[in-house]
């Protein structure tokens, strides 16, 4: 008769990710780099918001970006047009970035050459939420065209957000969505702060940059 035994493991499945994420964070802190993990729905305006941030902050800070996407070259070219270094990370079939992707992306980069790093995550409101990258602030972007119930369908990612951006408020009347409802839902899910923006019309972009500045100053 074979001997049957129970082996206690108590092993954290995401342990490796957590470990690499904290190494990333230590590395960033040592080099005085502030890192934003920009998550959000597909097509909600993550790249547009980063482009605006680069334009508004590049006079004060040296900026770099990681463009994470299933095919990263499109977004990476858009960011690079603003004159900052961009590291494209194509995830292929993977639906999120993890700390390991970020660690590798930074391998050949001079960390003394920038102060602020924007990481654009893969468009998805579920999977990225479970993976810490080593960032200092998590931003979650949604737009009115996803429908104004979108926030309540994904409470956890909004609960963990340091900032929720409800974008494309300019087209809210055309898609019949209420940006105010989305604002209220994000607050009730516990998002630390919430702003409404339009990358097209410029509305709310001052609040976007002042959020970024406050995080940069605080780290």
């Amino acid at each position, binding site marked *: 008769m074979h001997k049957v035994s129970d082996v206690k493991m108590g*092993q*954290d499945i995401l342990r490796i990710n957590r470990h690499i994420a904290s190494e990333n964070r230590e590395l960033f802190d040592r080099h005085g780099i502030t890192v934003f993990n920009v998550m959000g729905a597909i097509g909600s305006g993550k790249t547009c918001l980063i482009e605006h941030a680069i334009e508004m902050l590049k006079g004060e800070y040296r900026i770099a970006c990681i463009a994470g996407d299933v095919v990263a070259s499109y977004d990476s070219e858009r960011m690079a047009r603003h004159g900052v270094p961009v590291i494209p990370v194509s995830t292929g079939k*993977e639906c999120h970035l993890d700390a390991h992707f970020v660690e590798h992306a930074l391998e050949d980069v001079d960390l003394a050459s920038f102060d602020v790093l924007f990481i654009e995550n893969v468009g998805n409101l579920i999977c990225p939420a479970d993976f810490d990258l080593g960032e200092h602030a998590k931003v979650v972007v949604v737009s009115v065209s996803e429908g104004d119930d979108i926030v309540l369908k994904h409470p*956890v990612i909004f609960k963990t957000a340091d900032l929720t951006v409800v974008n494309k408020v300019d087209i809210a009347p055309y898609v019949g969505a209420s940006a105010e409802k989305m604002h209220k839902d994000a607050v009730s899910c516990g998002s630390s702060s919430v702003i409404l923006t339009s990358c097209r019309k410029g509305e709310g972009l001052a609040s976007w940059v002042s959020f970024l500045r406050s995080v940069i100053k605080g780290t």
Partner: protein
Amino acid sequence: MHEVTVAQSVVDAVLGEASAQGARAVTSVTLIFGELSLINTEQISFWIASFFEGSLAEGAEILIEGAPGKVECRDCGAISEVSVDPDDKLSHYLVPDFSCAHCGSPHTFICQGREMLIKSIQITK
């Protein structure tokens, strides 16, 4: 679809532990997924079982336990359970309440319920 990634990590860890223990076979695996983790437990069982095929854990029973979501209050320090809608059969928190049950403050953070653990495995030698 990060179920596949997470399933692969589970399989690697279980097979690693099993061979370190000199197991002939793994007969069951017990996992804990917090109720606020964004994992579909049916899907992940399916993927783990299919990755186990052809290994010494083929056919192992996969048991999944939950852990309720809890929040800790930044204002009063109390820990309270995140209320779940009993009618929500999919155990998705469609209308979540992350506020502090003690003082009502919305300034809380999730302190339990997002974990994913391999609790134990049962092996034969």
